[in-house]
């Protein structure tokens, strides 16, 4: 069960593919005098050290490149904002009927219902007997053992797949993989 989601492969790093550790940059610039402590902390916080020493050393020289601090601060803030956007996930609990414990998934990582379904299937593989655990389309309901449902902002339990993906991501509060027979009660009668 270790890393079966292969999360390490999707992890965002700054090194070139193949490098695992981020090296400490060397001071390459001539005549560089001692930096102030705050500068050092800021660099660590930004975390932008390249895998090769030379280019990263640029960032260590105080006041270089000669760009007005207002501009530097604006772009640094933007980088932080983007970083935050990437790292704060949209984690929701996933329960599966019959499973002894719940899981959590980051909806932000997926781009479509198919991605999500594949991931959930992989996550709960051990708990089901059937080959096709989860329905792909609403009409597959009678074929599969389980159905994915979600609780929306209003507290209602909805069948996954009816609304556009983005809308789903923004309104989903938790997921529940329901037993097929129960789920059939949710779909509108033909």
């Amino acid at each position, binding site marked *: 069960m270790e890393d079966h989601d292969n999360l390490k492969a999707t992890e965002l790093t*700054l090194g070139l593919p193949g490098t695992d550790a981020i090296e400490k940059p060397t001071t390459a*610039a*001539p*005549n*560089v*005098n*001692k930096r*102030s*402590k705050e500068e050092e902390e800021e660099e660590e916080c*930004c975390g*932008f050290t*390249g*895998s*090769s020493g*030379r*280019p*990263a050393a*640029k*960032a260590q*020289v*105080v*006041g*270089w*490149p*000669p*760009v*007005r*601090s*207002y*501009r*530097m*601060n*604006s*772009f*640094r803030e*933007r*980088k932080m904002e983007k970083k935050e956007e990437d790292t704060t996930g949209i984690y929701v609990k996933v329960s599966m009927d019959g499973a002894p414990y719940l899981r959590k998934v980051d909806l932000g990582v997926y781009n479509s219902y198919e991605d999500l379904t594949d991931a959930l299937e992989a996550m709960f593989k051990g708990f089901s007997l059937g080959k096709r655990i989860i329905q792909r389309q609403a009409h597959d309901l009678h074929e599969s053992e389980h159905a994915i449902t979600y609780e929306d902002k209003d507290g209602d339990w909805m069948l996954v797949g009816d609304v556009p993906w983005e809308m789903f991501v923004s309104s989903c509060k938790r997921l529940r993989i329901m037993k097929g027979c129960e789920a059939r009660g949710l779909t509108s009668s033909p």
Partner: protein
Amino acid sequence: MTYFPEEVVEHIFDFLSSHRDRNIVSTVCKAWYRVERLSRRIVFVGNCYAVRPGRVMARFPGMKCLSVKGKPHFADFNLVPHDWGGFALPWIEAAARGCPGLEELRLKRMVVSDESLELLARSFPNFKALVLVSCEGFTTDGLAAIATHCRGLRELDLQENEVEDHGRQWLSCFPDSCTSLESLNFACLKGEVNAGALERLVARCVNLRSLKLNRAISVESLARMLARTPHLVELGTGSFTVEHRAEAYQRLIHAFRKCKSLKSLSGFWDVAPRCLQSIYSICPNLTVLNLSYAPAIQGADLVKLIRHCFKLQKLWVLDCIRDKGLAVVASTCQELQELRVFPSDIYGTGTAAVTEEGLVAISSGCSKLNSLLYFCHQMTNAALITVAKNCPHFTRFRLCILDPGKPDPDTNQPLDEGFGAIVRSCKDLRRLSLSGLLTDKVFLYIGEYAARLEMLSIAFAGDSDKGMVYVLNGCKNLRKLEIRDSPFGDAALLENVGKYETMRSLWMSSCDVTLGGCKALAAKMPRLNVEVINDRDESDEMEENPSDMHKVEKMYVYRTLAGARNDAPEFVEIL
């Protein structure tokens, strides 16, 4: 020359537009001095510590417009410690006492407190224009005071200031009776403003010609405002994020089509590239385009946009435009006079965004180019020589190769010949910034050929004292010299001490100048302030009496009539 009545002399002086000319005529004789000083309306003080505020007010009682600059230029890059000085309050206090008719105040690189803004707001009944560039120390409370009390305010222009947001609805403080605004720029403010109040303000100020919004202003709001200001000449957009199918976007396109006078565009911090189509209709009229704060516009979108802007005279972009994009600029913007290419990926390793190729392309297409600021990853002598040949009209040439001390990558040679070609060809060059690997030779060229040079910025360059001496002895019109991380020491500093009284200032940091050298300079030249600025964390460890052999970290020398200033912090020693 007493044959002419004073009114005639005064009228003749009216034709002198430059400060320098007026300064010169005032030295001719007592009569001219008197006429000149009583009739001077616009006063420019390049260094706030060169003269006491009271003296300026006493000399020019009829002053209407005052410009003051504070911190040295390298303060922009965090090389000057935070509380070094440059306070605006003494100037505002003196003006309140001596020149209550003041109408315009322009401050650059100064510390402006809310207290001083409040004093400003209450002291000048005819106050019309406030321009703050790269200043700090104030909050939105200070702006609220300006908005509340300055009846008849025409211009409020805040450029790249660090303003603390106190959440106060400063913009709502403009009274309903305020209809005089012609120019409003609050792009650098981070906080929200009351959009409704802004829209009403814009609607009732019928003479509004320049409006630069901050990122908090939505597209919906922008569209509504544009609909009420069809005569707008300059626009800085707020947030430009909008669904391109949304109604607001359609209204925006419609509003832009009506703005036939729009000549200058900036902003676009957060823009969905698809939405750029909305401005294609105004692009052919643009003379100024500032996309240097638009990191979301890259590559193809950027190029597509520029292809519409064939009347452009001033272009500021990020280096994600790449050499290919610059080639498009070269073929499209034949009228281009000023180009600035800023680095977008300051902290990352990044791929080479622009190189010498882009610059050469620009030079061959834009023959009218006279002002350049170019951040690039590399430069060659050959390219600089070509650029010098193609563009002999440079007045400002600032080149920054991001890797300090980098040689010509093709030949591995220093860039002496390249810059030499620039100074030889551009006879009107007033401002020059050097970078890359450079020896004393480049300074020999500069001293010999850069006759009109007024400001020179040097970093990580030169081999010996000779370099600096070439410049000090050669450049007759030098006013500002700033040097960092270069091997110039006491011998160079003391070679031509008289020179510094002909200049506004000299800055040297991380060079080889010693405390003894600074003391010697101060002793020889009593009308210079020689400031030794110590790094804050070092001054605790420093011994009581550092030896004269001790190298000085930062030195700032400037001519002054005011003597040593009394507002210097602990870490600044004035010799």
